[in-house]
């Protein structure tokens, strides 16, 4: 029954594939070819490189989650990230990209560019990206990896107890509809951006808040991990099993953000991407220091996890303003995000079981970052990007701040409603949570049939090799000579 229902869930993803060939036999490639102006190649090159850095963030999220999970739930993250990333690619190619970018300025939902075909002149077809002459394929890839990042964020709150099939079903809905529509409003040339002038350069709201909102909806329906709260309701720590792998995730994410924000210029020739990059670096650095200092004052510890979360939180916060603010402002924005992180995690942990702190790092910091444009956006850069007005500190007006707030609220409610409805349906039909026994045993063995670390959970003496030595079975009383390669020396009485 479980089996067949998971299978059914999978079929959803596959159905898509079978529909494809129909009428897609034509040569779909037209953007590229010999004799293009150099700028196409140069800008496309940067967009692709940036996109590759963002793609690698999948590994970043995977190891951040793995490090914060228990060893019995480490392997499932690998299967999850691969499945989600794959579903997102198929769905974003078939419909997502078209919904997000394939519409006139101010659109609610795009209307062309499905399967990346039949859209005519790419510059006109996806007007908001017309400022860059990079090939549409490079732009698709860059926008797709953003979608995959947003989807990866959703699952941070659901670790260690969710049924695998839930990933499959929600991933299809999210990457086909929820993300494309909401992100299209914010940075796809939709109404929030084009009509209201909401500023979100690389997606504090359009990517991170959307993901965190889905994560909240999932968490509310899923509930905490067994043992997370004492009978009296007080929280109990469930430490992740591997801080080094957590650190690997953080460093990969930091690297990926150098594609995420600077790449959102969609081009290299104006040099703007180099300015966006240092703004990003300074904010992240300030975030680490802010988080460490805050956690230190609250708990007396240099909290390893908070140092990493602080970097992420600050990177999330600077994502929206990275194209609009000066370096000094980036430091302030990042530092405040760093302070928000431990305070948010401590507060939320009392009631909601968010193992990786996604609600804080991507949610609260995403909101802060979006609003910060309303405070710090430079006049020159508002002009340069031709979106919205300068921030409060320069204009003295609360106008832009209001627009930012409106955008945040709108996106939150849309995504929350859509996600909650989706998860609610899943819960009623397929179920969201593994059984208590499966949760105790861990998802690796119960969902995947094998532990992520078999030697630790089901060690088989003769396979693992404890106690065996190159010369163990040697009948000689002083077996040393039997181990010529290793310099192992055996001492005997």
């Amino acid at each position, binding site marked *: 029954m479980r089996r067949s229902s998971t299978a059914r869930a999978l079929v959803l993803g596959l159905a898509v594939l079978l529909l494809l060939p129909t009428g897609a036999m034509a040569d779909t490639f037209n953007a590229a070819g010999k004799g293009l102006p150099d700028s196409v190649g140069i800008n496309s090159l940067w967009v692709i490189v940036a996109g590759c850095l963002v793609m690698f963030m999948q590994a970043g999220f995977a190891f951040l989650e793995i490090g914060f999970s228990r060893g019995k739930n480490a392997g499932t993250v690998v299967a999850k990230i691969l499945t989600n990333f794959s579903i997102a690619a198929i769905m974003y190619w078939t419909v997502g990209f078209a919904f997000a970018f394939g519409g006139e300025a101010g659109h609610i939902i795009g209307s062309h560019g499905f399967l990346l075909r039949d859209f005519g002149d790419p510059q006109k077809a996806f007007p908001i990206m017309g400022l860059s002459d990079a090939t549409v394929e490079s732009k698709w890839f860059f926008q797709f990896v953003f979608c995959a990042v947003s989807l990866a964020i959703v699952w941070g709150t659901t670790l260690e107890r969710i049924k695998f099939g839930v990933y499959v079903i929600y991933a299809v809905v999210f990457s086909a509809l929820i993300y494309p529509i909401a992100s299209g409003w914010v940075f796809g040339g939709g109404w929030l951006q084009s009509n209201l002038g909401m500023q979100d350069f690389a997606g504090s709201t359009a990517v991170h808040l959307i993901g965190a909102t889905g994560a909240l909806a999932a968490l509310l329906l899923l509930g905490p991990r067994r043992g997370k709260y004492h009978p009296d309701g007080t929280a109990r720590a469930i430490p992740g099993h591997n801080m080094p792998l957590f650190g690997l995730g953080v460093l990969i994410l930091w690297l990926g953000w150098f594609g995420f924000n600077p790449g959102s210029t969609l081009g290299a020739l104006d040099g703007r991407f180099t300015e966006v990059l240092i703004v990003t670096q300074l904010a992240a650095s300030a975030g680490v220091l802010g988080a460490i200092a805050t956690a230190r004052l609250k708990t007396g510890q240099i909290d390893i996890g908070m140092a990493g979360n602080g970097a992420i939180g600050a990177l999330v916060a600077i994502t929206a303003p990275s194209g609009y603010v000066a370096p000094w402002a980036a430091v302030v924005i990042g530092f405040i995000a760093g302070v928000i992180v431990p305070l948010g995690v401590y507060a939320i942990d009392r009631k909601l079981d968010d193992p990786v702190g996604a609600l804080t790092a991507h949610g609260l910091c995403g909101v802060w970052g979006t609003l910060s444009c309303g405070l710090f956006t430079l006049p020159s850069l508002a002009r340069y990007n031709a979106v919205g007005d300068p921030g409060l500190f320069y204009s003295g007006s609360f106008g832009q701040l209001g627009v930012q707030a409106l955008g945040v609220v709108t996106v939150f409610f849309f995504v929350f409603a859509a996600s909650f409805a989706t998860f609610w349906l899943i819960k009623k039909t397929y179920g969201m949570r593994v059984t208590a026994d499966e949760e105790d045993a861990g998802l690796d063995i119960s969902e995947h049939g094998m532990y992520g670390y078999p030697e630790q959970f089901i060690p088989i003496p003769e396979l693992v090799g404890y106690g065996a030595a190159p010369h163990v079975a040697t*009948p000689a009383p002083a077996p040393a000579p039997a181990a010529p390669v290793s310099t192992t*020396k055996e001492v005997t009485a």
Partner: protein
Amino acid sequence: MKKIEAYIRHEAFEPIRMELLSLGFPSLSISEVKGSGRQKGITERYRGAELTNYLRPKVKLECVVADRDVQTIVDTILKHARTGAVGDGKVFVLPVEESYRVRTGESGEEVLQAHPDAAAATT
């Protein structure tokens, strides 16, 4: 009732387990120990410096049986655990005063009774 505690090499365990099972003694426990005896440890080199490990990993096999079965168990262990090299280990026999099966709460010798059917079970 007696408890047999044997300190043996890892690779010796599987054959012992299989023969005990076929003899109708499926019930036993093992754990990882480190020990020293005649066999005194091992010296490795790492980045030029020496590292002497005076203890060697062994498997400790524990098995409680009725008095009449002790010799069978001991002989089985001795038979499979011997390589003739130092480090083969030791077997000890300790007295046991009472036994309980948790599942049923029953106590006494029948808790230990051999399961003649057990041999078949894993085939």
